[in-house]
């Protein structure tokens, strides 16, 4: 159970972590509290709280079809879409994937905020340079090549390692939104940005100092 103060308040001036009942949001909440400099961080499943948030974190764990179903069931779709239009918005892992138009996982549509698809690591590419088989899920610390400058990369060296756990990755239609890529059998897009949105495949909340730096950058971000 989350500490009581994670669920209190109406969202005004708060950083709100969207809770749609999938996976563990405590880690994301804890890490944000750690970098929020006393700002309020809430975990909420209430569309009204998401709507009044100052900025929104959209996490995700598990399978994308389940995540999409829960967002619909809890009436969160329009609040999330609205936040993605006009607030500083951070998508994490499945929260990044759901911003896209379609996923191969369960053959389901996403929220369609960013043009492109979500693909599974193709079996034929899952071999490293030495000929060893690469396992899926892609689990552990891998490097992100920063494709261009972005306020969320501030103070984070190009090629820094972050913690990943996933079997699917995003394939944007337009390269313009790509801000980071990672190699695992093939190069894949590991971070995207579009206006007020930054979304990343890895788990900054579990990526030690580099992850905390990124979350602190998000808290300070004025897109």
């Amino acid at each position, binding site marked *: 159970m*989350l500490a009581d103060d994670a669920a209190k308040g109406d969202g005004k001036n708060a950083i709100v972590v969207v809770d749609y009942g999938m*996976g563990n949001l*405590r880690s994301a909440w804890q890490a944000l509290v750690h970098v929020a400099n006393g700002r309020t961080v809430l975990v909420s499943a209430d569309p009204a709280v998401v709507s009044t948030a100052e900025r929104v974190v959209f996490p995700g764990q598990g399978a994308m079809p389940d995540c999409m179903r829960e967002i619909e069931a809890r009436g969160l779709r329009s609040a999330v879409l609205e936040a993605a239009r006009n607030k500083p918005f951070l998508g994490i892992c499945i929260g990044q994937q759901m911003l896209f138009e379609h996923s191969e996982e369960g053959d389901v549509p996403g929220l369609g905020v960013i043009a492109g698809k979500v693909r599974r690591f193709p079996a034929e590419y899952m071999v*490293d340079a030495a000929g060893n088989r690469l396992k899926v899920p892609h689990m*552990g*610390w891998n490097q992100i090549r920063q494709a261009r400058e972005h306020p969320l990369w501030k103070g984070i060296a190009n090629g820094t390692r972050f913690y*990943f756990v996933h079997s699917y990755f995003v394939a944007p239609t337009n390269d313009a939104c790509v801000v980071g890529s990672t190699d695992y059998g093939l190069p894949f897009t590991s971070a995207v940005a579009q206006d007020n949105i930054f979304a990343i495949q890895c788990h900054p909340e579990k990526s030690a100092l580099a992850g905390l730096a990124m979350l602190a950058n998000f808290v300070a971000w004025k897109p």
Partner: protein
Amino acid sequence: MGLAKRIIPCLDVTAGRVVKGTNFVDLRDAGDPVEIARRYDEQGADEVTFLDITASSDQRDIILHIVEACAAQVFIPLTVGGGVRSVADVRRLLNAGADKVSMNTAAVENPDLIAEASAKVGNQCIVVAIDAKQSAPGVWQVFTHGGRRNTGIDAIAWARRVQQLGAGEILLTSMDRDGTRNGFDLPLTRAVSDAVDLPVIASGGVGNLEHLAAGVSEGRADAVLAASIFHFGEYTVHQAKAYLHTRGIEVRL
């Protein structure tokens, strides 16, 4: 550029205290799992594992408080195992702040638990711990109840089965090597790693840094777990990584 091999210190915890303690000279409390986890995080550990070996059931909830405190201070993945018997146990640990939950005896007694838990919380959260002991050359059997009971189940077949059931990772411990400091059982590690598509964590027997390197290169493990070489200050996690790096193994430095 690629995925780094992980180094994972493991702490045995009973009733909220680290068993045998550690001898970091400058720790305020050598028995405090949270303080030790924080120290390993500072040294560059890629994850931390808590194995709860609390015997008495009325003290079992203590681990939840430890996990909560750890999650508030340590921002790397935390795996918790020991005494996990139901999906409710898995959920309680995840809600307290664990990132992955490891199950062993309960998974053997009720394999459906793996499928059920993985469907509920996602396979990335479910680690199946396999304690294996050699019974003939190239043959290993699965032991449960902390290594006391032989199930007669073939370890390689069991590894394949837990993958089918939805495990996200395998924590493989050699009962023959555990505590010996003679190095991992490399043929076992390699046989299991080659048999499954899941990441395999090698465990049991690490006595020096070369053992860690061999676990990765010859055992083909995706991660290596060790306890005593780190607890007693023989090596820091950073030294272990620096060594693997000199051996051409990709690590997060």
